[in-house]
């Protein structure tokens, strides 16, 4: 499952999407919008066709690099309030070590190369700040 969506992420559905009988380990990484002073939400902007292509490439590279069996990546678009989930990555593998490693590697790559930008949505007293 590769998806970029405005609606909330169904974490159970993301895990179910990678389930298979020949995998004994499933790792789910969830990134959420953290409470910081003056911040009430993050706005995510996505170059969708390139981001979808990047996610698909990352899944294939993760399979080759770590030997994992399956991987799903779901990312939010638009406004995500504090406490909301902005990204979920699920990975299935025969043993847990490669699933943990693949999830961590893919999340780092998402932050490094996938065309997604976020802007802080400030409370009333504060101004919006673009994040890098």
């Amino acid at each position, binding site marked *: 499952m590769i998806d970029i969506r405005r609606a909330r992420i169904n974490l159970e559905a993301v895990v179910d999407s990678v389930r298979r009988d020949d995998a004994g380990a499933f790792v789910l990484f969830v*990134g*959420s*919008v*953290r409470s910081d002073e003056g911040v009430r939400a993050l706005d*995510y*902007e*996505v*170059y969708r*066709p*390139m*981001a979808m*292509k990047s996610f698909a490439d990352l899944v294939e590279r993760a399979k080759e690099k770590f030997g994992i069996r399956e991987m799903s990546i779901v*990312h939010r678009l638009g406004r995500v309030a504090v406490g909301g989930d*902005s*990204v979920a990555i699920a990975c299935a593998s025969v043993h847990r070590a490669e699933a943990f490693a693949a999830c961590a590697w893919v*999340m780092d790559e*998402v*932050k*490094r*190369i*996938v*065309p*997604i*930008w*976020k*802007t802080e949505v400030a409370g009333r007293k504060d101004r919006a700040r*673009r*994040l*890098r």
Partner: protein
Amino acid sequence: MRIQVRFFAGYREIVGSRALSWSAREGLTLEELVDGVLAKYPRLAGHRATMLLAVNHSVAGSDRVLREGDEVALLPPVSGGVR
């Protein structure tokens, strides 16, 4: 020929538009197109060193020769996922 040029995040705010249609001669390179865009929007010029370029949804080198109907994207440094 016509090239579609797309802008995101801070670049979109500088240009004041998500996309524009750019008129170009045949054989124009990506670098020449970017030079033209930067000349029209000088506030973008300071971002050139960190600007990533894509053609038709894939990262492209500045020597890429553009073709009719190509979609060029000027991408600021990305910041997806979590902090």
